[in-house]
């Protein structure tokens, strides 16, 4: 009995201290009344959460083991995938334009996130400037289309080749670095690309962006309606998912994972490190290029504003949220982060706040992502 009251009073003392500390930190920003309210809310919330947490943790452990068992069943039986695919195929029927619009956006982000997943998830190279490739893809496409009159199907391969080449060329010097230095250099690259697009008025039309991109055509028919465009994006998403699944199990995919786990050991086993890293970065850039083309063709207008650092962070969050290295997880993560802001339109102001807090909590409690079953490498 004394043990329980002892524990309870400790929890209470802790929550008083934490609430008081938070209230004091909050004081200058919103004044005394709001601060006092925060104190009151935290004073009640913290003991409730900590007590609930101690009761719920066995329950959570049970659900996660169920999820792991499900994870081992699902990918083996391909028929389940068709069950998922049917509603996805049916989206344009009966749904309003707004929902199809969000779905198209989600599709583009799935491709982007799958591309980044190759670099960050498989190979373990943190890239904070992935949006640069997206931007290069979109701008190459837009310029080819508006200045040289290329159609969708001819501009896209050229734009994707340009993007892949850009990824390759930047990776050659950058891959001499490791870990967070590499992350910083990629961030710098992303920012330089954006600043250049913003200032090179004669070529990119600066902050005003490029408009008048023509709609894609298929067998002479323009793809103008939203539903048609939805199927175009879906086509590329399915290709991306299928290709990723094959690559993951190929020799190259396994070499990437080996690199991520231990570079020196991988090299000792005969994996040419630099070459496989170059493959990885170029392959990631390739998908970013495709996503860029789709984005430009969908929007008919692009400007540097769409390619900020926050966009890179958002794509990274999609990859991390779902689970580094897991294709299904990344798809769910991308859809989740595109749909969530739309659902939370009412509390729009708080959604970035929640995203920030969510990233921290995820790193602390589930660094392998919501759906990644494999425990992340613990090597420092």
């Amino acid at each position, binding site marked *: 009995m004394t043990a329980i009251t002892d524990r309870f009073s400790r929890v209470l003392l802790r929550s008083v201290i934490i609430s008081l500390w938070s209230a004091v930190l909050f004081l200058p920003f919103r004044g005394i009344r709001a601060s006092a309210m925060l104190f009151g809310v935290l004073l009640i919330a913290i003991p409730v959460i900590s007590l609930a947490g101690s009761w719920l943790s066995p329950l959570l452990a049970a659900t996660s083991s169920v999820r792991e068992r499900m994870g081992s069943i699902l990918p083996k039986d391909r028929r389940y995938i068709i069950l998922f695919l049917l509603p996805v195929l049916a989206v344009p029927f009966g749904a309003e334009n707004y929902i199809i619009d969000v779905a198209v956006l989600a599709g583009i982000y799935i491709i982007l996130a799958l591309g980044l997943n190759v670099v960050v998830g498989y190979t373990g190279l*943190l890239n904070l400037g992935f949006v640069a490739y997206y931007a290069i893809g979109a701008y190459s496409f837009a310029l080819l289309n508006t200045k040289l009159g290329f159609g969708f199907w001819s501009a896209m391969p050229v734009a994707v080749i340009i993007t892949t080449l850009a990824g390759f060329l930047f990776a050659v010097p950058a891959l001499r670095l490791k870990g967070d230095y590499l992350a*910083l250099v990629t961030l710098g690259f992303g920012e330089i690309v954006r600043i250049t697009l913003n200032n090179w008025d004669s070529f990119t039309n600066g902050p005003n962006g490029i408009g008048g991109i023509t709609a894609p055509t298929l067998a002479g028919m323009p793809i103008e309606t939203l539903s048609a465009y939805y199927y175009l994006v879906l086509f590329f998403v399915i290709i991306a998912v299928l290709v990723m699944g094959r690559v993951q199990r190929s020799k190259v995919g396994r070499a990437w994972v080996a690199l991520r786990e231990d570079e020196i050991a991988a090299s000792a086993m005969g994996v040419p490190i630099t070459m496989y890293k170059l493959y990885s970065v170029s392959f990631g850039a390739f998908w970013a290029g495709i996503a860029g083309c789709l984005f430009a063709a969908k929007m008919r207008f692009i400007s540097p504003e769409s390619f900020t650092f926050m966009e890179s962070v958002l794509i990274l969050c999609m990859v991390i949220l779902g689970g580094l290295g897991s294709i299904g997880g990344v798809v769910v993560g991308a859809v989740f982060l595109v749909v969530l802001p739309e659902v939370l339109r009412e509390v729009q102001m708080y959604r*970035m706040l929640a995203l920030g807090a969510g990233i921290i909590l995820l790193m602390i409690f589930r660094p392998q992502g919501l759906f990644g079953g494999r425990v992340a490498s613990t090597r420092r």
Partner: protein
Amino acid sequence: MLLQQLINGLTLGSVYALIALGYTMVYGILELINFAHGEIYMLGAYLGIIILGFFTAVGLTAYSVPLALFLTLLLTVVFCASYGFTVEKIAYRPLRSAPKLSPLISAIGVSIFLQNYVMITQGATDKVFPSLAGDAGIDVFSTRVTFLQASIIVVSGIIMALLHAFIRKTKTGKAMRAVAQDKSMASLVGINTDTIISVTFIIGSGLAAIAGLMVSMYYGLVNYFIGYSAGIKAFTAAVLGGIGNIPGAMFGGILLGLIESLGSAYISSEYKDAYAFIILIVILLVRPAGLLGRDSEEKI
């Protein structure tokens, strides 16, 4: 013209140097790029405006401007140091033994959180810092040096000298150096590494607070997203001087400030923000140890 740019660059550079010190100290000890450090600086800029506004409202500023400014500085430093301490405790301490990328991603989360925290509580529009000193200044060789510029340069110089003495001479400073060299060895000789890490965050955040306050006085305008670019630039400064190296951060900061102001005057002002990134990339590729740093072998 040249002299004017040098003065401007020196002013900007001393601010970068102050922020860079926070990066370099944390990196020296934790090998973590504290991505949220720029946001602490932004908090400092906002807190300066808020606290000075409070003092003006209660009539202290009318009574004595220097006293109000001094108290503002003091409170800003205390608040930012508390924020830095709290951030470390919540977002980095639980990840001490996690894979290396986890704390970096967590730091990005902190950065997003703090930016939006300030945006929600203070609004998305620019905040104006009340002008106290105006454009008053002295002319040296037909170059205008405002009192504000002079005091920014002098204050930064004094603080950096104090920090240097602190790290070299005091027991805590010695413990910080020991932890930076070898964490487990330091704890074996009886140093509480967690306390030292907290102290490092407190000092670094205090320095960023001073930088933030001075910059909001200098530019007169503050926004919730100033922390990102200032943070990146200060990080570049730290890398330029050799990350983990304290004199290097001071040197790198001033060098970067000079490059930026001379570059925007003589090359192109449109690409002003790109200079820091270009320098960052070039330095990391050519000499990752920085100008004053030593190469270190990778530990296996």
